[in-house]
């Protein structure tokens, strides 16, 4: 899990062009400057590439909805990784 977090953090740092981002579970799109719908696509693409996973169409939408946070995002990645390994 911690490895997922570290790698996801690198993804965030690159996508949002901010080497200082530190991921916390309770973070939402409102906490990260620039996390608009365009950047969300970039985040999804970068995450898929980094972890070699594939999000379903509905998952891509869901991760941007109100009430979703970084914790949910990390949990989804871990779930997918567990399924593939």
């Amino acid at each position, binding site marked *: 899990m911690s490895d997922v977090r570290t790698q996801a953090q690198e993804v965030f740092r*690159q996508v949002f062009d901010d080497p200082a981002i530190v991921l916390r579970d309770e973070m939402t799109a409102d906490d990260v400057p620039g996390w608009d719908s*365009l950047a969300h*696509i*970039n985040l999804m693409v*970068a995450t898929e590439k980094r972890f070699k996973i594939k999000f379903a169409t509905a998952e891509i939408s869901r991760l941007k909805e109100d009430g979703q946070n970084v914790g949910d995002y990390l949990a989804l990645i871990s779930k997918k990784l567990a399924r593939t390994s």
Partner: protein
Amino acid sequence: MPDKTRLERAKIRPHPGFVSHPALIGLQKGRVIVATISDSYATLEKYLAAPADDKPEVFGQLLADLRALLAEGDWTQAASIVQRAVMPGGDFTTFQSLYRIYSKLKPHIELPQKTKLALLGGFTTTQLAQAIELALFSMGGGVEIFEAEYGVYRQEILDPGSELHRFQPNIVFLATSWRDLIHRPALGQGRAEVAAVVDAELADWSILWRTAHERLGCLVVQNSFDRPVWRQMDNHEMRHPGSLWRFVSRVNEAMADGAPPYVVLHDVDSLAALAGRRTWGDERYFFHAKMPCAPEFIVDYGFSVASLLAAQLGLSKKCLVLDLDNTCWGGVIGDDGLGGIRLGQGGAEGEAFVAFQQYARALKQRGVLLAVCSKNEEHIAKEVFEKHTEMVLRLNDISCFMANWTDKAANLREIARRLNIGLNSLVFIDDNPAERALVRQLAAEVAVPELPEDPADFIQAVEPYRYFQTLSIAQEDLQRAEYYRANSQRDEALSGSANVEEYLRSLAMVARIGPVTAMSLERSAQLINKSNQFNLNTRRRSAAEVSAMAADPQWLTRTVSLTDRFGDNGLISVLLARLEGDALLIDTWLMSCRVLKRGVETLLNNNLCRWAAGRGLRRVCGEYIPTPKNDLVREHYAGLGYTRISADGTGHTRWEMPLSADWQPQPVFIEEQEFDE
């Protein structure tokens, strides 16, 4: 703050002492000299050489270097490195990062060759626009891009008052996909009937091309239509007259044969085929963001379009310069001799070198110059061309033959001088990473693609750069073009439209307009919470709140659904208004941008005013609340004939429409079907 630095890549200074460094003088094959190159160039070389899987990690270092260069204000070197690091087939996230760096250094550099591109998309063009700009930058050109809202290319072209006309582009790019086909054959139609549908399709596009060309004096770039990732008729898709694939192929052929000379076809269908249609068409990102292809191919797509802009700017390459040992054949001729080098039948690797020579020869046949730049004794090198039976390339294919022991940067300058072309017209192919690194730094204008170790991969390493792009291949079939032009003029009277009014009429639009119902509640709430651009008030509301308003007699709710002859656009506009005294106050007004400039807002306003006038109200009031995204509708109410009654310092404006007895609706070209519940 340093002075604005003019970008002259020739003046990029190498590391002090580099030129006379001993490693350079006696440069041997296989010896990598990156250690002597200034640090960020060394990182660049490491990045270019890294296998695809390792690239993102190495890119982290390159990004850090680039940020440091920006912090120091070394725009020239940062620009040079970005230009080298951008490559077709590059990773989408890496491209986004490079684009950000490019955006930061752009104000500080000058690109002498610039063009203006209007990008009119049937899909979201944001990422493609960036990819085009960055790819063109890597080719040495600059571009100012105007992006229309997606799906409104007809209005932009046909309306002389549109933003497109104010922008005055050099090139209009109609970035379409198969979803933008105007006509579709019916499955039961025979060959002759489908042929007529193909003619109609061509005629409709011809009108847009001609209008754009005549009014703007610009070049038109039109996408071919990509075929979808599925086949309705399975194996018979290519043969059955009414199938979509066959129709798309026929339309592409008709455009290829019938488009006038000012139209350049950009063959996006071939891009899809080369990438692999299923991978290319990752439709998740179309469903989400209306992206035209899987994100990973946006960079390739950008390169392909940018190469056409480069051709227009005269930045296309003219000459392919080839190293010899381990580039044109396997082994070292000076050591291995004529019988020892690997070339031709008898060995798989030898065949791969033959295939690469055939590619070079094919380029020569279409007009690309070939040159040789090799560290060899000239007579030994030439002997291979003269005597080796498996050689595809012969001495008379080579316009300039440089085989000596001088450094390659100097030789490349000499080749350019002798051929009387610019150094920036050369593409240099060399299997030796040290030579590539040297040329990249000392002859910075020369394009030097990274070359994989396996000769079977050479063509793939070169081809996607589209170095030798041209806008047209000779003057072919002019007569046939004339025939098609006449044909399309005849068809114009039938299906065409040369002005917006005619176009809107030809759409045969029907609007269903009425209150929010249980059926439309979810979609209405979704639009309310998602629309940003055509949104006067940007007030977000839950489905429950909207449902309550629909039931409240003090509120008026309206939704508009629109169909036209191309299909059903679904529910595309929502309005919420509140009764107060003798006034109807518009609380929320929004619309999907895919039906911009069709008159839907006028229709809705007519409906609203009629409703209010019918209840004896005296005025309708609206307001515009500015956000970073809704500038599009700043003058919305002015356009509808409202009077501005107040404005504050933030740009928040209030508007009013008096409703007298002689109130008249404004003309629209949409049939209105009103419903109650």
